[in-house]
């Protein structure tokens, strides 16, 4: 599967365009163009899906509590997202008086940056990847270590006692769940041999990694929820205790950014979990391009037509399905579980998650040695 080389394609297109005027477009111009378009593309995809997820969450919350959910704005409430966005944008963006203005304004952008960057090495389908970094997954884990920075700065800058508590709680949770998360990822790297995200997906050709790494999946999932501040650990933004945690003093679109980032985070966890453990864009039916459906009695063997292969075979559809399934599970947990207490969950991190992660490494090594040889 040749990687779809975006840069080569744009370079040839530019040469064709420049050729008309008799010039030869330099390669770095194509490279620059790809990066620009790519980053805008990723940025828009992440934020719109984040926004869409607010609608999905409200709809699911309504169903679980036997309500109807948003259905006033647009058909089935689809434009509710636009309505919320407009509302937040039109709201007055209050910056309280005695607030550290620079940090206060910086915090929301600090929250968005890590996620958009971390989406780069995620393989959406066989050849659709934004930038195939050699050590893909390590880059992702490194970048996601940045996420608590936004919550801490927001907490500190808002000069509000509740916000400081939210920020400090976010810091404590994220740092203590960094290690279990990394160890779970190391387990996956152990099985594939290389940290490159595409190879991780390819290595899951025989068996998806959640079968040997079920423990790793559980630890990774719990750690990711803790870092993102999702229930059962939505402590940085615990409504009933800290009013609104680190985002207490935020209003208008600034608060909107934090809110969308929370949901973009869910998409990010969904993408990561499906790449690492659920076999990314691999379809359970294998690669259907060029294969034939076996003849059954009177039915002749029919080669699989291309569109069917595109959908059922390996590719984008399966990746989106798995991601959406993981997001459904996250929403499901959000709507069922209560919030844990900070100190108890920190104890769990160091006394339960950390040893389990080591055990998971041992299992991964054993599986590697015994099965893959």
């Amino acid at each position, binding site marked *: 599967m040749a990687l779809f080389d975006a840069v080569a394609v744009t370079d040839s297109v530019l040469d064709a365009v420049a050729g008309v005027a008799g010039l030869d477009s330099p390669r770095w111009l194509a490279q620059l163009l790809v990066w620009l378009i790519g980053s805008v593309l990723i940025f828009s995809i992440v934020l719109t899906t984040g926004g869409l997820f607010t609608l999905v969450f409200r709809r699911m919350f309504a169903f679980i509590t036997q309500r109807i959910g948003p259905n006033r704005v647009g058909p089935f409430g689809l434009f509710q997202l636009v309505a919320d966005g407009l509302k937040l944008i039109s709201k007055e963006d209050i910056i309280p008086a005695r607030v550290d203005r620079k940090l206060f304004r910086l915090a929301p952008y600090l929250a968005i940056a890590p996620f958009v960057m971390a989406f780069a090495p995620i393989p959406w389908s066989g050849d659709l990847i934004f930038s195939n970094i050699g050590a893909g997954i390590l880059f992702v884990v490194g970048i996601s270590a940045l996420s608590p920075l936004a919550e801490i700065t927001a907490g500190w800058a808002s*000069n509000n006692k509740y916000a400081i508590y939210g920020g400090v709680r976010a810091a404590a949770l994220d740092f203590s769940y960094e290690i279990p998360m990394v160890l779970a990822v190391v387990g996956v790297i152990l099985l594939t041999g290389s940290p490159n995200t595409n190879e991780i997906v390819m290595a899951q050709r025989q068996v998806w990694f959640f079968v040997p790494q079920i423990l790793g999946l559980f630890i990774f999932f719990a750690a990711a929820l803790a870092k993102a501040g999702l*229930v059962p650990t939505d402590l940085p933004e615990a409504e009933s205790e800290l009013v609104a945690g680190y985002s207490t003093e935020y209003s208008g679109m600034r608060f909107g950014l934090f809110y969308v980032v929370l949901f973009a985070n869910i998409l990010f966890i969904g993408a990561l979990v499906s790449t690492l453990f659920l076999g990314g864009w691999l379809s359970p039916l294998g690669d259907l391009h060029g294969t034939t459906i076996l003849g059954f009695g009177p039915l002749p063997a029919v080669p699989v037509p291309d569109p069917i292969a595109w959908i059922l075979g390996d590719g984008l559809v399966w990746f989106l399905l798995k991601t959406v399934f993981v997001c459904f599970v996250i929403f499901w947990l959000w709507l*069922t579980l*209560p*919030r844990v207490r900070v100190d108890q969950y920190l104890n769990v991190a160091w006394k339960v998650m950390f040893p389990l992660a080591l055990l998971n490494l041992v299992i991964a090594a054993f599986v590697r040695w015994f099965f893959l040889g």
Partner: protein
Amino acid sequence: MAPALSATPAKNGAGKEQQFLEINMGPQHPSTHGVLRLKLTLNGEIVEDVEPILGYLHRSKEKLAEFAVYLKFAPITDRMDYNAPGLNEWGYILAVEQLLDYQVPERAEYLRVLHGELNRIGNHLLWVGTMGLDLGAISPFWWCWRERERVLEFLEQLAGVRMHTNYVRFGGVKFDAPPGWLKRVQDYMAELPLKIQELEDLLVQNDIVRARMIGVGVLPKDRAVSYGVTGPMARASGIGFDLRRYQPYSVYDQFDFDIPIADTGDVYARLLVRLQELRETARIVDQACKRIPEGPIVDARVEGSKQLRVKPRKGETYTRIESAKGELGYYVVSDGTMKPYRVRIRGPSFVNLAPLREMCVGSKIPDLIATLGSIDIVLGDVDR
């Protein structure tokens, strides 16, 4: 520039200068169940000192009572414990009835029990919902509200208004049960335990809930007695006292129901006691629906608008009923005129809130929120 923290320096164990953070939780805060202000002194997450400051909802009902005729104070008592308004009313009317010699017909007593117990079910459902919210579980609140909506619908059909029913009258009640109402209530009482089981599946055995509730906000039995705590909170600390059983008023002696008693006295015990009490109340309402006799609903001498001209004899009374929060008492002093001379109200939430400081010092902020929620206070009842 760095934000200024107003911290009160105090000596800690090692004699070093220990800085505590002072926070005002309330009077406007998502989980203080009303306008209660808690002046917290915090050492990180640990609560060093809690000082409840009351009075933000103080309407001085006891002074209001002295301006109006006896019956005009009844709708005002509805506004005290607005989670279960019917029980406040019943307490007041029962207190004044001690000074009158009206004969409450049997059917009226049963209707009063039905009206009171439906209010109690509504109150406990609302409590389980908000307790879930305090711990962060969003969906149980809406399930509880769906059930409470059914109960409010029954009250609306019986008395005309969903919450502040103003239904109990001297010597009886205002309306009779509409046709088919008793049947509908009885069917619902069969359906309610299933819904309670659903809530229990979500909340009771959940590991996170157990970790958040067991051993939190413990009130031992002797301290509970000393603090004069009553109601479900006392029964969770081991005091098996229920006014409906130990001093049966109205016709409670004809129903058999048992009193849930736990002895650990923590937030988890209060949750279990209230959930069990929901089931017991459903049993009472079911028996009341079955055994309600026919007959008049108010003493003939106080028909219709004569209620407003009730004139009790000179004397004093202290009458107590088992309201949803605990022992709701009215000390009514009458000087023989048509207006009460003095009405003193024992708000159960006011008394149950007192041990908050003793239960929460040394625990964490989330525990403080859970304990405050578990006491089930309503600020209308606290501030009166």
